[in-house]
């Protein structure tokens, strides 16, 4: 973990040796490609076989931890809920809602922490074990910070309740002593246990008066001689005024009561009531807020922020949020006593006590190895309207910047990309551009996945991406010789050019094989037939074959002629169409009318006239023979139809 944001962390790529080879790199969205290069060393190279390797360096490696996926997925739901939540809810209910959201986030962190803890216990691999343990401590630090931010920023507890919240916070997170407490309480005779007084002290330091009194009463019954002394201490502890959560008492009232109680404690200490028992005397000193007496119990508090809260409890119970910073700073100095320098966690908590929200976020970004925490916390604080227009010189605002980073990380993951979509949706400025760039890079290995990606694009009217995905799928299908599938995809994308290309493939196949493939599709084109001219022709041409097959010759003939005269058929296909007309011309009964025959003849002449003499010369004999046969058939048909029409008119 780094302390200075000026000094970037050094990352060693295992296997890459910058001293032997130069390294070059290319940026990706969330990854860096590093490869070894021989650039500039050609002269010195001794022709050793180059085994250049390629490394993928991932920035956000936490994304790849299996257990954390629960955190990402569950918090995604909370995030969406928060974005959808009613902004209109006024004042108190809105605040209650936001606090609830914050608590939900914390419970997700805790659940994940427990899972990770279980994993750490059950694994036998020491490397994995240490990895899990590290994650547990990171998660627990995240929860600690989040909880403090919740108290100070989201709930913005006022003087009075503030202290109660901080006490809860300390009780929840300082759990090193819990084992000791459990051990003493579960022993046969707690008051005889060597750690008995330690446990009483822990309770007093954490303000758990009832539990401390309960223990003391046990001790008192074992020592009938000093029962009076116990009674006095018990009385003091019982009478200690605490700030109330409701509006039952004002701060001044509370302060008055407290002053009074304080003087009473002072009196007992001075007249030496507890002089005979050093344990009880020190407890009394703690009650009086004696800093030295509290500091003596350093081991029982383990952290400076515990010391801070204990100190506040017994000397400034009505501390105002804005005064916190002074007590925090001095508590840390007193507690650490110049022996050790503050760690990143201490700096973050200190920044929170100083109400430097941006500092908290910045320090967390540096210290934590993932974007999850800062992105979600910043978003929540933004919903609390606490981060007003803190514009960065890049990107839009901080919330969006962090969300974009987090979501980009998700997109670089093999399967978490779906979560990223919703985060981009809630980035008003750059979210869409990011989404457009990322979504195109998702590998589409099955049609189902393509459909899912397509749905995401269609819901957001990303037409360009829809077209591109359909085209990719159509191309794939085409390569696999699945013409029907390819056509379906291009129809979905309304891609006329591609539909034309595929229609041509169908027609080519037909010319080669003499029958259509994929009839079930072509017969059911419906209105999508109108997408491209060629597709229309394909559909109509197939219709002609169907009519012919059903022996509805006159309809078939009409359709065939129409295909040419209305210029639906491509010129290159006219010869085939005319050849198709041959059997109709040779039918026993006359099908083409005189007028239709003239039209056919004109088509044939147009076709042959269009070709230059040179081309004609090159055409093989088959083609020439076809033309000759057609001319003959047309002439014979014309002869028959003239006779027939003449006869009909005559009769």
């Amino acid at each position, binding site marked *: 973990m780094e302390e200075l944001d000026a000094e970037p962390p050094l990352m060693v790529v295992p296997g890459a040796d910058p001293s032997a080879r130069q390294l070059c790199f290319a940026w990706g969205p969330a990854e860096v490609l590093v490869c070894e290069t021989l650039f500039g060393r050609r002269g010195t190279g001794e022709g050793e076989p180059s085994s250049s390797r390629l490394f993928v360096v991932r920035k956000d490696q936490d994304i790849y931890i299996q257990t954390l996926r629960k955190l990402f997925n569950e918090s995604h739901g909370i995030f969406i809920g928060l974005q959808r939540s009613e902004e209109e809810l006024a004042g108190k209910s809105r605040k209650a809602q936001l606090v609830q959201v914050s608590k939900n986030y914390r419970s997700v962190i805790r659940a994940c922490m427990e899972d990770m803890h279980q994993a750490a216990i059950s694994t036998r691999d020491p490397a994995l074990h240490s990895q899990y343990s590290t994650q547990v401590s990171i998660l627990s630090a995240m929860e600690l910070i989040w909880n403090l931010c919740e108290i100070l920023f989201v709930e913005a507890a006022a003087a009075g309740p503030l202290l109660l919240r901080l006490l809860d916070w300390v009780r929840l997170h300082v759990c090193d002593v819990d084992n000791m407490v459990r051990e003493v309480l579960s022993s046969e005779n707690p008051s005889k246990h060597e750690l008995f007084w330690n446990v009483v002290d822990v309770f007093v330091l954490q303000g758990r008066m009832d539990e401390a009194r309960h223990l003391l009463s046990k001790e008192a019954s074992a020592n009938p001689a000093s029962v009076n002394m116990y009674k006095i201490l018990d009385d003091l502890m019982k009478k200690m005024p605490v700030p109330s959560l409701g509006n039952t008492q004002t701060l001044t009232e509370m302060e008055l009561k407290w002053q009074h109680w304080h003087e009473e404690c002072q009196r007992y200490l001075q007249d030496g009531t507890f002089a005979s028992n050093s344990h009880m005397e020190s407890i009394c000193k703690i009650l009086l807020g004696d800093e030295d007496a509290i500091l003596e119990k350093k081991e029982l508090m383990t952290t400076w922020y515990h010391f801070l809260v204990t100190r506040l409890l017994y000397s400034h119970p009505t501390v105002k949020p804005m005064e916190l910073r002074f007590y925090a700073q001095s508590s840390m100095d007193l507690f650490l006593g110049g022996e050790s320098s503050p760690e990143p966690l201490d700096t973050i908590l200190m920044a929170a006590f100083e109400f430097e929200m941006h500092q908290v976020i910045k320090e967390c970004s540096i210290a934590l190895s993932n974007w999850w925490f800062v992105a979600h916390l910043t978003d929540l604080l933004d919903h609390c309207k606490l981060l007003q227009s803190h514009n960065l010189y890049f990107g839009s605002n901080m919330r969006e910047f962090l969300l974009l980073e987090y979501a980009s990380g998700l997109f670089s993951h093999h399967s978490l990309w779906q979560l990223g979509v919703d985060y981009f949706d809630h980035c008003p400025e750059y979210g869409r551009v990011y989404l457009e760039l990322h979504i195109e890079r998702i590998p589409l290995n099955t049609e189902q996945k393509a459909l899912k990606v397509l749905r995401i694009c269609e819901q957001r009217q990303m037409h360009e991406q829809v077209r591109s995905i359909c085209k990719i799928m159509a191309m794939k299908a085409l390569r696999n010789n699945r013409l029907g599938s390819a056509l379906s995809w291009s129809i979905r994308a309304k891609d006329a050019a591609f539909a034309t290309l595929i229609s041509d493939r169908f027609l080519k196949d037909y010319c080669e094989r003499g029958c259509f493939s994929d009839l079930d*599709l072509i017969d059911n084109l419906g209105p999508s037939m109108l997408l491209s001219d060629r597709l229309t022709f394909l559909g109509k041409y197939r219709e002609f074959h169907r009519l012919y097959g059903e022996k509805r010759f006159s309809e078939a003939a009409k359709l065939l002629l129409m295909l040419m005269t209305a210029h639906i058929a491509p010129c290159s296909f006219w010869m085939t169409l005319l050849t198709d007309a041959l059997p109709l011309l040779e039918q026993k009964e006359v099908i083409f009318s005189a007028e239709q025959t003239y039209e056919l003849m004109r088509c044939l002449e147009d076709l042959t006239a269009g070709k230059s003499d040179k081309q004609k010369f090159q055409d093989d004999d088959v083609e020439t023979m076809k033309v000759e046969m057609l001319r003959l058939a047309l002439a014979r048909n014309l002869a028959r139809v003239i006779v027939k029409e003449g006869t009909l008119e005559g009769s």
Partner: protein
Amino acid sequence: MEEVCAKFVSQKISKTRWRPLPAAALQPPDLFATGSWDNEDNRISIWSVGDVGNVGLNGEYQGEPQLLCDIRHNGDVMDMQFLDQERIVVASSTGTVTVFRHHQNNQTLSVNQRWEKAHYHVDQDTSCGGAACTGVICNNPEIVTVGEDGRINLFRADQKDAVRTIDNADSSTLHAVTFLRTTEILTVNSIGQLKIWDFRQQRNEPSQIFSLTGDRVPLHCVDRHPNQQHIVATGGQDGMLSVWDIRQGTMPVSLLNAHEAEMWEVHFHPSNPDHLFTCSEDGSLWHWDTSTDISEKPSFLHQGGRSTTYFSHNTINQSVVSAWLSNDPTKDRMEITNLIPNQTLSVNSLDVLGPCLVYGTDAEAIYVNRQLFA
């Protein structure tokens, strides 16, 4: 709704299936299988929701699914069906169809039978070119699979080679398959067609084709009414539920506007077919209930009198039929409930058996509801 139990499993779930109950069983199902998709390594997992994992004193853990065992699966799990109490047939995006056996004595999974590249593009023998197998249905010992290659395969669980293969059965992608009768199957494809295939016929052509008119909306799932085999429900890309009467016409009897995106699965309740369940890409899961109306109808069964017996039976039958086949079911006959209040990501799969419902989502969670009709 408080009876729903969620578990985040760190993998996107593509299929969930209850293990079938033995014929005479009275207790609710206690084991289900899930398959994942789009992970770097996909898995088939067996979960227990029975009393095996009953840890809590007050039964607080009772609903929470417990992982019994899992096994790696090559490629996305596209479809999954229990062949019998022990064997699961899994369709893969690589085109391979695998039968896994669940050994209940030591809680392990192993490969029992595998058909490599049952579905393929161009050439089965080349190294690449497997085509995703999109659907599988079992009727022990027969297994039918369909795929993106438009191919239909008929396997027998104990035979190495396919019993019957229909190449190029469909020019577009086949999305799902189900048995209509023992020798007939139903398939749906990506151009809105429902086809019946009869394995007794040697021709490689469908015996009947039904289609949606006009828009050719792709169909993604199909299920047959468990008692009345002519009633078939399908779900489409636009989230529409179509009910078909395959005895008549070539078009659906009713089209019901349902989800806002692809309907991935539709299931009639196996023993209570007045209830239907559908799930969708839009993250919703709907319960369609037509039973309310029928109970209010006067029952002809108890009228007595020998002369009316035949008639009354007929009438009852018709009233049940009309529940799904009436022209305007939305108006007064059907009660529809969305079972997921805060929907986000796609619900890919669901299964119902007895009073129990299980479903899996892209948000990497599985949900179990053990009191469906409470």
